[in-house]
Structures are given as C-alpha cells and as structure tokens.
C-alpha cells in the first residue's frame, strides 16, 4: 500500500522499497509548529505556499493557552493562516488527528504529512500518514513536495477471538512488548487478519497511532466497507476500497493471536516495557488520565462510562478525561457518558492534547504515578522526571481509577471492543 501511494504521488507507474522519490503531499497538517514554519518561510523569503488549499491547521497542543506566550503563539498562527491564505483552519476543534479524521478530510490512498509524530493515525483510513519536523514542513509548504525512501512493509496479522476486557490498545502494546518498539523502524506497517477487518475505525486509529511507537513511517489498514461507512457518515460518499495489490511483497510477517491475550500495560519509562495486567496488579496510582489522540474517542469514553457508572473514583485518584475533540465531547454528552463519568467523580477538561505531552491540564509531581490511555511514558513525559507513567487501555484506566491501583479491568467489565 505504501508503494502504491508513493508511486502515485511521485508520478511513477510503480516504485519498490529502497527507492528514493520526491512525492507531492495530498494533505498537510500543522499544529502550533506552524509558527516556527512561519519564521523559516520568512527567513528564506517565501511569500506564497505551493498549495494553500491542501493545508490544514489545528491548534491543539496548548489549547486553552496555559500561558500568555502560548496565547501569543496562537495569535501568530492565526495571522499566518491569513497571510498565506491557508484554506483550512480548524481552530481549536480538538486534537489534530481526530479532527482531520472525523471531518472527512483524510481519504484512503492519500499521502498526509503532519508536524506531529502521531500522523501515522491516518493509516486507520488507509492513508499514508507520516510525521515530519518543522524544517521539512517548511520545505513542503513551499514546494508541495518532500523526499522519501520507499519503505519496506511489515505485515501484521491479527487473528483469534476478541476476549473479554480487550481493546485495540492491548493489541498494539502487545506487539511493541513482544517485538520491540523498533519492529517497524524505517518501514511501513500493514494490519491484516480477521481482527483487523472486524475492528472499528476508533480501534484502527489507536493501532495506527501507536505505529509511531513501533518505529513505523506509515501504519496502514486496508480501506474496506468499515472505512466507507465511516466516511459516508462524514460527508464522503462512495469511497472505493484500497488495499495491497495481488502479489504484494512484505519484508516479513508477524502474527498476534488475541484469543488468550490479557489486557496489557506498558511500565515506565518506555512504551515497549510491556507486561500483562496481572503482573502489575496492585500498583497504586495517583492520577488516571483518559485522553490523547490514541484513546479519547467516543468509543473509549463509552467504555470508561460503562465501568464507572454506579461506582466512585477512588479518593486518592484524580481521574482526568480530555475528549479527543469537541465533537467527541458533544457526542459523549448526548450519549450520557459525560454525566456518568462526572457522577463517578471524573474531571472533564477542554479537548486537546492536554497532559499527554506534559503541556498542561494535569501534570505529575515528584513521586506520583499515573495510569494513562496515551502513547508515551518516557521519563518526564507528563511532568516531573521523578514521576511514573503506565500506559493502558481506557478500560484499564477506568478500572484503576475505581480501585486506586492497577487491577484487571475484567473484574469490573466483561465487554470487549474487539
């Protein structure tokens, strides 16, 4: 699939892994990094963007602005949108990847480049999404193109049955734990198999998102009828299937059988430091965080609400819920999830990246421990360098919030979203 996307966007009939191409991006996504791109564009003397109609701007990392300096950055970003005629300004509608997906911007087969490492998320819809840095974004804003080495592809087969308590997060954590967080380094991932085919777009987004934690350039699901139905509900009718061509070549194939899989947790301070929940049960937590582009969608809030309904958050624990977007928040209000969460004692924050990268809305102090539905638990990631972050599914987060310690979510929830 990666080869098909890079062949089309580089104007070639076909490309193979290892080849160098200059590819034209279909969609460019900038968050607050736009302000740094703006400084570079001015310094180099660029007065016009190659394709302002392909550029989408979302302010998510520092919304609502925690400091006056951040507010000033947002002002600058809005001014740059005006100055360069950028056609798609999404303001502060939520986390960039959620917003571009739920608004039907991203389509199967596209090449999408974003100033955020979790741009792999777009692979949930069969789009080749990759994160790039500010300087590369400046270059592609100016020229419309960027160099790529065509990646080899790692095929991941998801088989087995969806056992109780399991969510997509458990699967992607298990892959990183078993095969390493560099299993797909410099490569593309394709997720296949019956569990991939049966997975919702929300689950696919979680797995594509954490393709970044597997080292991947792109993390793709084939676009199928699940994809078409999702996009049809977002104003994009008649989406054609997109998948590997017959005879597609894979660098290697790894298989994950979910049948007897336990809920998984990544321990400090690396997403690959994974254990089954039973191995860490009893570990006390001070904060439980349900947020981020990985796991704060309606489906995630629904599972948390189901677990928390009729229960109370443990008095030692702060449960912070940061919906992935304003649309997710509104949907969760209308579905009754927000009331269930708040009645149990959860705090609902403004949507955005929030505490995940250590920006604001719930940082950790020295000696504190957080169970988090996010993607990274690097040292110091969510505040103090003397804090600890454990990563788990929304079910694991909600169950820990009730118990005050890590517990098997199956003690409180026998459902499954697989």
């Amino acid at each position, binding site marked *: 699939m990666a080869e098909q996307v890079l062949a089309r966007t580089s104007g070639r009939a076909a490309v193979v892994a290892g080849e160098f191409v200059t590819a034209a991006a279909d969609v460019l996504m900038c968050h607050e990094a736009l302000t740094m791109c703006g400084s570079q564009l001015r310094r180099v003397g660029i007065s016009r963007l190659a394709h302002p109609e392909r550029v989408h701007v979302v302010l998510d990392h520092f919304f609502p602005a925690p400091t006056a300096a951040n507010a000033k950055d947002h002002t600058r970003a809005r001014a740059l949108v005006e100055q360069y005629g950028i056609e798609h300004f999404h303001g502060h509608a939520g986390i960039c990847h959620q917003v571009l997906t739920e608004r039907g911007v991203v389509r199967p087969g596209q090449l999408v480049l974003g100033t955020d490492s979790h741009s792999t998320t777009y692979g949930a819809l069969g789009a080749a999404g990759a*994160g790039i840095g500010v300087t590369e974004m400046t270059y592609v804003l100016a020229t419309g193109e960027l160099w790529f080495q065509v990646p080899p592809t790692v095929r991941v087969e998801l088989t087995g049955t969806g056992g109780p308590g399991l969510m997509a997060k458990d699967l992607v954590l298990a892959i990183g734990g078993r095969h390493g*967080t560099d299993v797909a380094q410099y490569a593309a991932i394709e997720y296949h198999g019956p569990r991939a085919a049966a997975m919702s777009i929300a689950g696919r987004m979680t797995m594509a998102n954490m393709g970044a934690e597997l080292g991947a350039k792109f993390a793709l699901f084939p676009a199928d009828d699940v994809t078409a139905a999702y996009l049809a509900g977002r104003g994009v009718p008649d989406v054609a299937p997109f998948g590997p061509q017959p005879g597609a070549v894979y660098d290697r194939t790894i298989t994950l059988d979910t049948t007897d899989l336990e809920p998984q947790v990544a321990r400090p301070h*690396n997403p690959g430091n994974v254990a089954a929940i039973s191995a860490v049960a009893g570990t006390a937590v001070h904060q439980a965080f349900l947020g981020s582009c990985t796991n704060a969608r309606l489906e995630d809030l629904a599972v948390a609400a189901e677990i928390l309904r009729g229960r109370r958050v443990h008095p030692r624990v702060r449960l912070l819920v940061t919906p992935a977007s304003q649309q997710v928040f509104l949907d969760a209000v209308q579905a009754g999830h927000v009331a269930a969460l708040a009645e149990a004692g959860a705090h609902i924050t403004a949507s955005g990246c929030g505490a995940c990268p250590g*920006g604001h809305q719930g940082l950790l102090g020295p000696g504190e421990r957080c169970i988090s539905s996010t993607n990274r638990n690097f040292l110091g990631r969510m505040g103090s360098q003397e804090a600890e972050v454990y990563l788990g599914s929304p079910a694991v987060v909600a169950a820990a919030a009730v118990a005050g310690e890590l517990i098997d979510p199956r003690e409180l929830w026998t459902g499954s979203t697989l």
Partner: protein
Amino acid sequence: MAAAVGSGPVVRGRVWKFGHDVDTDVMAPWGVIARPFEERRAHVLRIRPEFAAEVAPGDLIVAGRNWGCGSSREQAPENLALLGVAAVVAESFGRIYFRNAIAQAFPNVACPGIWEATDDGDEVELHLATATVRNLRTGAELSGRPYTAEMLAIVEAGGLLEVLRRKVAAGELGDGSPPGAGTPVPPPDARRSTR
C-alpha cells in the same frame, strides 16, 4: 556539526556513550522547549546528569538502538548540535529524528556494532561519506550505512532550509519572490526556537 561536513570528510572526537531507546523527550523536555537554548541546555539528556555541563564542542555521541525514538520535535537533534556535538553514531535511529538531523545538516550515522565496540571516553574518527568509524584506542574499524547521495546532498548544502533558499534564489519556486530573495540561513548557534 555542519561545518565538519563542508570543511572535511572526517569528524574526530571523544565519545559520550548512551544506551538503547533514548527518546526525544529527554533530549528536549517539553517543559522548557519554548525557552531560548541557554535556558534549556542544562535539561538536555539529564539521564547523564554531567553531560550538558561537560560536553565539549567536537565530542561525539555513540548510542545503541533506536536513538531519538519518539516525537517530531526538531529541538532534539538541534539541542545536541547546539551543545557542540559533532556527530552521533548509533546502532539505529528513530526515523523522524534521523530526518530532522539531515534537515539540519547534523551528521548522524547508523553503524551496527558500534555500541559493543565503543567505550565511554574513547576517541573515534568518523568518515562521513563512507560511514567508516575507527576507534583510535582499540584500532577497530566498522563500516556503517553511508548517507545516500540524496541525503548527503542536503547535508552538504547545509540543510534543507539552505536547499530551499537556493531554490528561491534560482527562481525555481515561481512564487513571485524576486531572485535572490531570502537571507542565508544562520549557523546553528544563532538559531533560536520559539518552541
């Protein structure tokens, strides 16, 4: 840093050795990322508390697998270059970090075997064009993965912004900018991130 590439094919220096899976967040912690470099330099790679204070211009970093895994934040390689690190030689790299380093003309070379073959404090010599690394203490010589011609062209130009500036100067972008528009990209020590 960049000057080493243009002025000669060899980088020679003392080694600071790091482990596997060293992430971008410890190279450029979010809490200080918006501050000027002088205020963030003490926070770079605090997993070795003496590093930021004692690293000298021209030193090299030798690291294990997956150096620079994590975020797209460009301050990760930028902080190292601003501290004077001449090059990084690692078993392998996080891909966005690796691209960001190329875009900044900061030499980073993948060299399987380097981690076992090198001790902290060794002096090594890196030939960038061939990705050959020689340990001057042991005499061991390893061959890494050289930059492809495309990557080397960006590094030798002084980075991707310089490539872009040349395109503008040559009138290649057709954006109405007058030929010669733009100013030369300042050297890394003059750069200042706004985030």
